[in-house]
């Protein structure tokens, strides 16, 4: 892992780690349930079994059907076990090390599921939403509103837009593919009229209904059953470290020093105090 700066005030809405493994109905067994209960019973006490009776054979391709979800009391952290995947998700993010530690505990619990030893895909995704800058002006091009905060390299295509599209919201994507490993990092970004993250999952998100700039960065490494990405906890975590470095590199490329200095390095406490003083300030938060 690289030495990295931990921003006290990141624009994170959601962070997710996903491990995929061969689909197994044994995910819905009492041993696995008990292992996760032991691992997360205190931190994630809210347990929601999604499979009540699975008496018929689900068709193949049911990888993402959840078996159970465990969440914290505040519903800001969740672990979801699916028939072919494990998700660890945070809507309140402390640090990568915290997330990594959480995943290590989940991996330990996952040892009760023999099929899950062959990890066929490791993915980590950071969904950032940078809220509207003060005095944002959308006339003349949506990108102008964020121009001081987002790297100008992300906007060139917008410069060529016809006048009729200049005030539209926009989205775009970039893919980065490692030349030396199997890693891929995708960036989905754009200016949106409101948050892109739906509050329809197990996690509770701080609601806001105002324009923001999305930086959705997803880095993953995929293999096959016969050639898994990792088959041990150290390998999974080492892969995750590499993927996180990619996410961090992309994020730091996307933002300007102005955003880093004025927003990300602000203490969250100071931010909260200002919010309390004037919730309608419209400032960049």
């Amino acid at each position, binding site marked *: 892992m690289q030495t990295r700066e931990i921003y006290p005030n990141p624009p994170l809405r*959601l962070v*997710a*780690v*996903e491990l995929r493994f*061969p*689909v*197994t*109905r*044994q995910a*819905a*067994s*009492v041993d696995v*349930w*008990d292992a996760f209960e032991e691992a997360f019973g205190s931190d994630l006490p809210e347990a929601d*079994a999604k*499979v*009540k*009776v*699975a*008496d*018929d*054979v689900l068709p*193949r391709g049911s990888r993402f059907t959840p078996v159970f*979800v465990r969440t914290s009391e505040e519903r800001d952290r*969740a672990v*979801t076990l*699916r028939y*072919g995947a494990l*998700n660890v*998700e945070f809507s309140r993010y402390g640090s990568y090390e915290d997330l990594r530690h959480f995943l290590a505990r989940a991996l330990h619990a996952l040892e009760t599921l023999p*099929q899950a030893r062959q990890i*066929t895909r490791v*993915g*980590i*995704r950071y*969904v950032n939403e940078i809220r509207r800058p003060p005095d944002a002006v959308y006339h003349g091009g949506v990108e102008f509103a964020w121009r001081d905060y987002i790297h100008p390299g992300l906007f060139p295509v917008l410069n060529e837009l016809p006048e009729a599209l200049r005030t539209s*919201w926009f*989205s775009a994507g970039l*893919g980065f*593919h*490692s030349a030396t490993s*199997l890693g*891929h990092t*995708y960036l989905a970004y754009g200016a*949106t009229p409101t948050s*892109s*993250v*739906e509050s*329809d*999952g*197990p*996690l509770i*998100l701080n609601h806001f209904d105002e324009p923001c700039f999305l930086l959705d960065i*997803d880095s*993953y*490494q*995929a*293999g*096959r*059953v016969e050639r898994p990405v990792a088959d041990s906890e150290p390998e999974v975590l080492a892969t995750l470290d590499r993927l996180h470095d990619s996410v961090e590199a992309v994020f730091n490329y996307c933002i300007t020093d102005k955003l880093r200095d004025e927003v990300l390095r602000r203490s969250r406490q100071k931010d909260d105090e200002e919010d309390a003083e004037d919730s309608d300030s419209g400032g960049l938060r």
Partner: protein
Amino acid sequence: MTDNAVKYPSRTTISNTIKSGIPGELTQLSDQAGKLRDASGMLKLDVEILHLETLSMMLDEGIEQRVREDVRILLSELTEVRGLGWSEIARLVGVSVPAIRKWRTGGDISAPRRHALAKLCAFLDLIEMRKIADPAVWLGTPLSIELDQSLTKAVLYAEGNALHLLAYADDHMSLLHLLSASGYEMPEQQRRVEMTRNYDGSVSIVPLNESNVE
């Protein structure tokens, strides 16, 4: 970089969905289908329970009628009309053959035993209503040629699975489901599925050899 990775760059899953601009019709359709699938799964469970409840009510109604009849009449019906032997009746009701012999000659019968005898008669009545010409023969036949031939429907009945047998007779329950609900498994060499017990006590039937699915 594998071909697999390039062809299927599916995003890392997050439980809270992300809007992708204006949701496309396919996305909406997929969401609706997913929700319908979830709903149908729950509905299936509810309907199964409802079905068993209605069968239970039908059986209770039949028992209520039969329990009013004379025990000797019930026994003669089981032997002469249904063609059951004394030992079969004793096994199905859960008593000894001498006990049956005693009832036949007018001996005392306890309320639970009378209820059990009435239940057997009512059960056979309901089986007959399911277009099974000879309920007693049906009850004595093995469940499957793949199973121990001594495992008959009568064995399941004697072990308290009357409602599941009624659902099975109605073709609303598969053999596998009947076995699972009755606590039996297919022989190891024949199995294409296995059963796991969920934390809540329910049983999942899961296919074997799923380990290489990807």
